């Protein structure tokens, strides 16, 4: 990819990648760092990146970077995150958006990523598999389980309200 391709990629996809990472990490600074690192890697490897596949490449790099970040943070703040989950469980959200945010936060990062890649970016199972390093059938099963989990949570919360 050329310098022009790269800069076009920034214009077209920086927001998408940022959105995807931010929704996963729920931390603006960290999301920005991950996006910057992903673009930095793409710039360094631009000679090997096919311009037509630049978006997938970007999401792949960003996803891996995010997983690394999550693992690093989890090692440090495992207890704190667990408490946070308990606290949120005690406070049921009262509108659909909040319920969805809450339901999404209860998914594993892999499931959450699959839902986001599908709903936000509209990637196919095959493309999602390539980005996340899963097989197509794994993507399908994990994604469908995630959706049913989200649905069950919504049904449960509506019944509570």
């Amino acid at each position, binding site marked *: 990819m050329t310098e022009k391709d790269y*800069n076009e990629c*920034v214009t077209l996809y920086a927001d998408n990648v940022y959105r995807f990472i931010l*929704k996963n990490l729920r931390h603006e600074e960290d999301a920005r760092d991950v*996006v910057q690192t992903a673009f930095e890697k793409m*710039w360094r490897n631009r000679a090997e990146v096919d311009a037509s596949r630049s978006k997938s490449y970007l999401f792949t790099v960003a996803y891996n970077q995010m997983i690394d970040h999550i693992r690093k943070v989890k090692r440090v703040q495992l207890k704190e995150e667990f408490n946070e989950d308990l606290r949120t469980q005690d406070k049921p959200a009262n509108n659909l958006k909040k319920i969805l945010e809450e339901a*999404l936060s209860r998914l594993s990062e892999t499931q959450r990523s699959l839902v986001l890649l599908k709903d936000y970016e509209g990637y196919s199972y095959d493309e999602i598999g390539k980005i996340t390093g899963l097989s197509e059938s794994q993507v399908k099963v994990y*994604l469908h389980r995630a959706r049913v989990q989200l*649905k069950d949570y919504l*049904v449960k919360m509506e019944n509570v309200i």
Partner: protein
Amino acid sequence: MNINRHNYEEHFVLYMDNELSHDEKKMVDLFVQQNPDLEEELTMLLQSKLIADTSLHFDEKEMLLRTETGFSPSTELLLHYTDNELSAEEKQQAEQLISQNPSVKTEWDYLQKVKLQPEENIVFPDKSVLYRKEEPVRIIYFNWKRIAVAATLLLAVSTAAFIIFSDKKETNAGYAAEPSKGITPSAEEKQQPAPIKDENQVAVIHTKESPVTPKEQLATKKETRSQSKNTQSGIIKENTSPSLADTQGKNENNLPEPTYNANMKRPIESTENLAELNMPEKKALTIPEEKISIQPVTPAYAHSLQSSNELIDAEQPEKKNALRGLLRKVTRTFEKTTNIKATDDEDRLLIAGLSIKL
């Protein structure tokens, strides 16, 4: 077991339940023929047997089925539809299922609710940090013409250098062979007897050295021999060897002490007689003039015309000028042909500093 009027009921029930063997069934039929009053009882019993209502159907059998992913086929279909992974035909099938089945419709509605929508308001805060610009890399492409010119230039320079340096060697050899032009007085003196002028000088030296005793001269002679073995050139000897005359003059006469002059310090030649022993002193008097004349510094060139080194000194600038002229000519040709300036601001030819990207 035989059938009779006391146990026929049990046999009739077993007959109705189809639990009797073929022979037992025949036995029951024969018993009913022999006892017609019991035929009605058997008929009533058989009529009480229930028959399955085949008109009844389970409408939601699909919901009970399971696929390998653990979901029912209908849910799987709805999930695929949500993920937009269905063909047009499958979509139609799904829509039909949704419209026909209320429970499927409810599930579909929930799935649509939990489908995420991209939040366009979330944007990367400062894209300028992501934009990059490549550093320009200047690449000079060589064509065959330029390579040919470069090769010619290289050949010309190397040939010129070879010719010049081989000429220089020859000149040096000739110069060394010709005694009249020699700069090494010691060699000259060894081959030729001292001229009359030199003899006078020796006489003067003798008068100077008169206080030297024969014993001292002998000791000095030995010392000089050892020094002469270690020295190769007459000039070096002049610069480094101590002079007998100076040494003795300082110590044993009343003359004013001469000022220090390195050129005045002359070794005593390793000769056998006294006259030859004093020869270096003669050289000590003549050497300063010679040394001035043979200095290779250009300003001294004009003065050196009077000396015996005139020819040698005159040849060197000519060669230098010829080489410079050749280099200038080649440089000009190179610059004209390639449009590359090969010299810097001070008109110096730049030979190194060329980088080639492979």
